[in-house]
């Protein structure tokens, strides 16, 4: 991109600077622009475009009418580029001093300054941090600059990430790119609850194709691919607290659960499913309802031979004893764990996430009290359709759950959430405010854009149109850990990994029987 003048500041106020675009200046909504100043430069961003004209409205209407009605096809304005132009509304987003000090601008750029499009050089401060999570390349309008955007994963993930977007805007592509970039990093443990089975790459390219996948990636599915783990959790691994905020129980049912847990310990679910008699302490009707609930949620029931069975195969009384421990340990070793929940009901998926997340959260609480937390990898839980557990109505009806607890308190214990959602407005403000990184993809719903903008790390109040106009793969990263709300172009996952894919070496194995 040439460092040509694209326009000149002609008026405005803080947050709303007016620029007359130079003819052919090609300023787009979302464009990053630069105004040179004494001692540095200001990075600005366009958020609205208007027509400007020196020709009175009536004359323009008349001229258009004459051309349209065939009365003067050759008629035109005298020096049209001078008389008609585009006015861009822009805002200053960052002040960069000559000695590379970065500040939020508190003054207006010099009046009548010329502005130009940003160049790669202007963004030299976007460097690769430690524990980098790759998000994409800087985008100025629709032009992609050769500047990579990374965020420090340890900072970003513990302070929670929100990925708001409507369907088809590239949410899962973004998460795949992020996960790929950190797959080999041992300082970041990530649990992905994958309700669409789209991250591992069962049917195409996915995280399984990463060169570190064998050491660093675990995949659990009820329909395991050879070499991957079958998702099965032993009923004895489940505690009553895991249902907290996920499944609704009446007071009588809660009391019955406590009674069974106190009496039968690890075998409390099995005892309920078997209808083990505990005398008058639990009403038969309550017990029957609980049996039905466990059948509905866990798919657990008694067969004709009096054996405990599970319809989905996910819960078992004979298998899966080590599953949660293995997953927890893997996360603590900085591995990435994908759980394919595509064949599970919502509640079962959330319950599995709750079992694992609770385990991790409580272990990390202990590490903090022991003073060893700093040595541990940070852990993040990726959850889709986040309002299922973070929605205001859900929290009101069912109370807090482990996900909302992590959202509120996880930062202290280095456990975070990556919440993906189409409906940000359903999540309470207090939780949104805790999500310090928002990777905003396109969203056509005004209420949703409003909810995102109101809780963003930077002032996005004038960016409604910019967000609305984001195309597939385009995003804005608003984060406490970026210098400004960075517009990015997320690469297509398949394209992004192209260079990393290497043909696997085939060594002949000497088989010893």
């Amino acid at each position: 991109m040439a460092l040509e003048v694209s326009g000149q500041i002609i008026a405005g106020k803080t947050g709303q600077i007016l620029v007359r675009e130079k003819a052919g200046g090609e300023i787009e909504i979302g464009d990053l622009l630069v105004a040179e100043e004494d001692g540095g430069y200001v990075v600005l961003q366009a958020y609205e475009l208007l027509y400007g004209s020196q020709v009175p409205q009536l004359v323009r209407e008349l001229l258009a009418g004459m051309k349209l009605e065939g009365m003067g096809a050759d008629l035109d304005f005298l020096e049209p580029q001078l008389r008609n132009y585009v006015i861009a509304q822009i805002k200053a987003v960052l002040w960069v001093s000559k000695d590379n000090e970065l500040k939020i601008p508190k003054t207006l750029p010099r009046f009548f300054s010329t502005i130009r499009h940003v160049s790669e050089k202007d963004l030299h401060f976007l460097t690769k941090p430690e524990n980098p999570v790759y998000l994409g390349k800087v985008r100025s309008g629709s032009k992609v600059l050769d500047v990579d955007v990374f965020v420090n994963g340890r900072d970003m993930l513990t302070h929670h990430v929100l990925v708001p977007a409507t369907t088809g805007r590239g949410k899962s592509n973004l998460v795949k790119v992020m996960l790929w970039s950190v797959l080999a990093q041992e300082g970041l443990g990530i649990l992905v609850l994958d309700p669409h089975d789209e991250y591992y790459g069962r049917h195409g390219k996915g995280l399984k194709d990463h060169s570190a996948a064998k050491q660093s990636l675990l995949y659990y599915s009820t329909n395991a691919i050879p070499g991957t783990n079958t998702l099965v959790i032993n009923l004895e691994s489940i505690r009553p607290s895991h249902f907290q905020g996920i499944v609704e129980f009446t007071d009588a049912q809660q009391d019955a659960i406590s009674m069974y847990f106190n009496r039968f310990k690890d075998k409390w679910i099995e005892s309920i499913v078997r209808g083990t008699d505990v005398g008058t302490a639990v009403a038969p009707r309550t017990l029957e309802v609980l049996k039905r609930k466990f059948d509905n949620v866990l798919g657990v029931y008694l067969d004709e031979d009096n054996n405990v069975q599970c319809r989905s195969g996910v819960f078992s009384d004979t298998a899966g004893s080590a599953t949660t421990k293995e997953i927890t340990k893997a996360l603590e070793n900085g591995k990435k764990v994908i759980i394919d929940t595509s064949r599970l009901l919502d509640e079962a998926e959330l319950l599995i996430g709750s079992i694992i997340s609770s385990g991790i959260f409580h272990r990390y609480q202990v590490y903090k009290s022991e003073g060893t937390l700093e040595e541990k990898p940070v852990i993040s839980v990726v959850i889709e359709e986040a309002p299922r557990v973070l929605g205001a109505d859900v929290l009101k009806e069912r109370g807090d759950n482990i996900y909302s607890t992590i959202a509120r308190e996880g930062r202290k214990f280095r456990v975070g959430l990556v919440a993906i959602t189409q409906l940000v407005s359903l999540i309470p403000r207090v939780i949104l405010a805790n999500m310090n990184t928002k990777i905003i993809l396109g969203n056509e719903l005004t209420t949703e854009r409003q909810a995102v903008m109101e809780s963003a790390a930077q002032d996005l109040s004038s960016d409604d149109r910019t967000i609305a106009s984001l195309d597939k793969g385009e995003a804005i990263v608003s984060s406490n850990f970026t210098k400004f709300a960075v517009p990015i172009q997320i690469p297509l996952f398949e394209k992004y990994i192209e260079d990393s894919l290497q043909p696997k070496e085939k060594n002949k194995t000497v088989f010893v029987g």
Partner: protein
Amino acid sequence: MFKFAHLGDCHIGANRDPVLEKLELAAFRKAMDLCVQEKVDFVIIAGDLFHANLPDMYVANEAVKKMKEVKDADIPIYVIYGSHDYSPNGTSIIDILDSTGLIEKIVKGEDIDGKLKLEVFTDPKTKAKLVGISGRKAGLEKNFFEILDREHLEKEQGFKIFAFHSAISELKPDFLAQMESIPVSLLPKGFDYYASGHVHRRNESGFPGHERIVFPGALFAGYSRDLEDNAKGEKRGFYIVSFDDKVEEVKFHEVSVCEFEYFEYDVSNKNSMQAKKDLLEKLGRIEAEDKIVVVKIRGELSGGKTSEISSSEIKELLKENGALEAVINRFGLTSKEYVSIKAMGEDIPTIENRLLRENIGAVKVSIEELKGDKGAKLALDLLKILRQEQKLNEAKKDYVERVQKHAINTLGLEDEV
């Protein structure tokens, strides 16, 4: 209708104590006798028949004599290596017995175009088809499972048994969560019976496509943890499976050779003298006659040394009270006065893992990568590399170069060398 017996983890030779050694052999004899009595058509031993690849000759001889009786009753014994009696160069006692025809090793295969093609053995009498993958140290057999040509085995018709000696990730007990294991998805599908070994706790389970995966557990005890489990009520034995063209019945046969007693004692809030006195008093009151008594002492002493609670004194007391043998577990015993290095685990890798993680802090280094969990992991990775064996057709020079290269890569020193 045919029948076969499925045993695993006999660990003959594991117990050096004469009483336990006698019981270990008694359990094996009893199991073999039951096989003959029940007129099984063949026996499968899914690894770790012996505790070492070259076991003590006395116990080996006793076991061989018993197996000879089974063989003479026209009952073939099919085996695979376990992680203990495995030998990379075919010089295990298993190979010697295989050469004599006393037992038959059912593991044979080769790498064809990157895929491990296993040979299918057919039992001449029942026509049951047997395939196996032996266990190796530190779960190295996983590499074989990863390149296994499953499709070829799945196409095989008839009554099929797959024998292996590996923990299955989905079936491990929770205390073995860190044990090397393979996911069930690496097993070929559609076998009628998966005869497993390696995990010393009994488990019968199944998954769609792998309907019947059975771990008989240890026959007596390969480790002191097994003795503790026995004392807590774990039933030891093996399976007899009835079948024709499919499995009709899977029945566990208990093999009990003695009674056990379990006693657990928490020393917390007592000093060594108080704890010792109290413990001996309590142990004096338990029914020890003709039993193996397992004593577990745990907790942190408020003062004194852990060695002041003497195992020999406890053993002496229990033997005076008629105990066959006393097994003392003191791994959970510590004192505020000092901290000992504990080494408790199922196998060497588990112990290595634990020791490295627990004690890495004692090594003073300035390089960040060598500290904490990172350092422990690096050490473990390095150990794994140094444990690699020379391949059969590999020159020593190539072997040394290969190990060096892997070690340098693991240490991240490619640019330095």
